[in-house]
């Protein structure tokens, strides 16, 4: 059964993964040879990731205030573990710009699913 601490670890993991993504995007943005079109796309992706980081940090704050978790069904637990594993498999270092642009939406989707699952089991508003 998932405890508050388990959920905090998952939430922190999702946030960390996205912070690493922002860092990698910033490295691309520092490249003087980057085209303006690519820069524009990367800035847009960066804003999306940053918004999701903010969201995950709000979830984390709610988790800290939670004293109970509504029980997960075995299927819910499996789904959450799968999402967590999936997030870990996203390797962001050494990507090309286009690969990064393609990967970011997947990372955000996975993080959003994790955040929604956490919110739904702590009695906190989504």
């Amino acid at each position: 059964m998932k405890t508050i601490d388990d959920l905090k670890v998952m939430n922190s993991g999702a946030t960390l993964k996205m912070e690493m993504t922002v860092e990698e995007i910033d490295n691309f943005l520092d490249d003087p040879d980057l085209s303006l079109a690519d820069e524009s796309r990367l800035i847009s992706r960066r804003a999306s990731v940053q918004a999701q980081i903010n969201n995950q940090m709000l979830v984390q704050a709610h988790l800290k205030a939670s004293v109970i978790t509504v029980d997960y069904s075995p299927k819910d637990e499996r789904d959450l573990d799968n999402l967590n594993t999936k997030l870990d498999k996203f390797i962001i270092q050494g990507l090309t710009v286009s690969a990064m642009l393609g990967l970011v939406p997947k990372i955000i989707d996975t993080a959003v699913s994790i955040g929604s699952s956490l919110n739904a089991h702590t009695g906190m508003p989504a």
Partner: protein
Amino acid sequence: MKVGVGCLWAAALLLSSCGETKFAEQYASRMSEVLKSYRDQVDAKILAEQQSYVDLAKTYDQANAERVRNSVLVERNRRATATVDRLVREKAAAPNTRVAWISQIHGDIGAFAELDFEQSQASLSREVDAYKGFIAGLADLEQEQRNLDNLKDSLEALAKPKSVIARLRGAGEFGCEVNRNFQLLDLGQKITALSAKIQQETDEDKRKSLGKQKLDLESQKKNFTAPCSGS
């Protein structure tokens, strides 16, 4: 005989009243313990809530700083794209003319640097604990703790055995109530009996006399309808 039975009833009721007082004291004592445990839980909850408010405030502060940074990035990209578009257009219009002037590019960069500085200044020079501004208007959770303490104190006072004077005052009130209810019962029975007698009586004069007696009894009964006051 009637007086003896009345005394026995009064004694039994008095004893049961004492038992109820004892029970109420124990109940209040137990409730006070439960409330103390609840107070501990509330303390932990409030601490967690306060920490989460601090975390939320830091998140909002960080989000605000990121918003400024993002807007600067977007503006830089927009201005660079606009400059490139202008140069391409001018070159297309006059292929043999020089369109890019270093001084103009420097001017554009300078204008952007000024904007960047203005936008970022507030964010970079803000206080370390600027996030606290986001929690300034929040309700004070300590009020809830104080209310709980007051409730706990009231229950603890209730759980303490009453003083002799309080007991005597309570016993006096109890006796008054017993007497009042007894009188109401007695008068009610007498009125019912008189009503039956009036219905059976055929002599008009006797009916009037009985009617007068019934009115007297009903008047007496009215005096006992109000409960005994604590004073």
